[in-house]
């Protein structure tokens, strides 16, 4: 981790099997990840002028409702789309996760 970025490892810091939109869907849902981890960490990164990296390595499921609620939902709850695009970087090293990176970008842009 460089001094200009913070990192969230979704699998280790939250769950390797995140799923669902909110608490009604299950414990490791998108709204919980967004509200408890992603949003506060992003706000902190923005305040420090840093980039927040969310690593998807080690994650074993990428349900669309989780991804949409966690990332697209950031914009809906008031974080500016410009800030999300500028300060939030989602990364995955394996080829198999690439389609989910694209999906996250789509959810943010459509939010």
């Amino acid at each position: 981790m460089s001094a200009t970025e913070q990192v969230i490892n979704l699998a280790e810091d939250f769950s390797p099997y995140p799923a669902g939109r909110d608490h009604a869907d299950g414990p490791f849902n998108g709204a919980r990840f967004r509200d408890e981890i992603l949003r506060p960490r992003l706000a902190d990164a923005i305040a420090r002028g840093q980039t927040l990296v969310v690593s998807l390595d080690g994650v074993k499921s990428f349900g669309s409702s989780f991804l949409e609620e966690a990332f697209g939902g950031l914009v809906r709850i008031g974080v500016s789309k410009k800030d999300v695009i500028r300060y939030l970087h989602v990364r995955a090293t394996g080829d198999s996760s690439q389609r989910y990176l694209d999906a996250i970008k789509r959810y943010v842009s459509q939010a």
Partner: protein
Amino acid sequence: MRKLSKKLRNWLIKKARAGSLGGRSLHLRRRRRVKHLVQLWTGTQVREAVARNDPVIPPANLCLESNAEETLRFLNGARYRKPGQFTGRPGEKMSWLHERQRGLPILWSYSDYSKIEHLSTSAAVVLTAEYDRLRHLYDASPPTVNLHQWSDAVFSKLYEIGFFEILGLTSRVADMYRDSGNVRVMRIMSGTNTEGLESAARNLLGLASHYMADRLISEEVILALNSALSEAMANVARHAYSDDHVFPYKHIGKWWVTAEVDRLKGTLTVVIYDQGATIPVTFPKRSLSDRVQDYLSRTLSGQKRFEFENDATYVAGAMIPGNTQTGLKYRGYGIPQMKELIDICGSGKLTIFSRGGRCQYECGGEVERRSYAKSIGGTLIEWVVQLPEREHVGH
């Protein structure tokens, strides 16, 4: 009123005996009750009982793929089964069996599973779920009748998926898998939301990778499978058992998952079932073009109208990205993601049965749809994916 002349009376009696009255029913005779002895398996012993009525006969081929209409009719009937009160005394507990002080206990009704020759995995899941529901609601599941007459294939299928464990007839074992020839089956799991995803996903991976060492289940397929399953579980938690829906029977708010691998065919089959409100109820939307298509196909085929005739169209509509009951543009990706798994695998098929609607998508093809007059009693999703051989990968 027409006078009942001797001639008319004789005609009525004759027609009633023949069992028909020109489309009108006239039950002059009581239903014939045939008492007979049956054997009940309690898990530890076999005991006899007197069955008061003829059994319900299931179709010989209980399969949603090759004999959907008869299978749905039987499963639909089974759904309305419940234990009875035999004495009518106040406070009497409902039970499947009437224990008497003298003589053998009385069994009011049962289904004769010895008549089943083939039982598909999907039909077995629906059946097991139904027994699980009855056991939860009434503290006891329907008795297992004449087990010694069941075919080996039917007994094996139910044993493999854990039917008898759910009934409480056999003790729960640690082993998640059971082998039968070239097929290994994952014991049925159940849950109410996505909390069960991790254990289901781990068991699925164990099922496929240990049994089919010569087949490749890529990281991409694993991710897509887990993601599709997570969406199915989330849909159950969010939509299936909504308080807004009035259910014709009590539910227990669960999903059931099982899977099997066939080493000879190189296939992995995953089935998830719930007894919820169904897609046609929670997503009753049809586009204008679908309405026209439904009308034309019904008119051209001369098919009579029936209650669930549009259900397949509703299911097909839910498979289109962005279509959702909420009307919110950011929703409606769950079922399309279930379909995407088939495209990622490059072969295989997805079948969604919901109430009376059935849609099937084969990789690269169109969605085939068909509606049935009887409901599956919820939503059943089945993925069958072909796993490539290891030596062929990359060539």
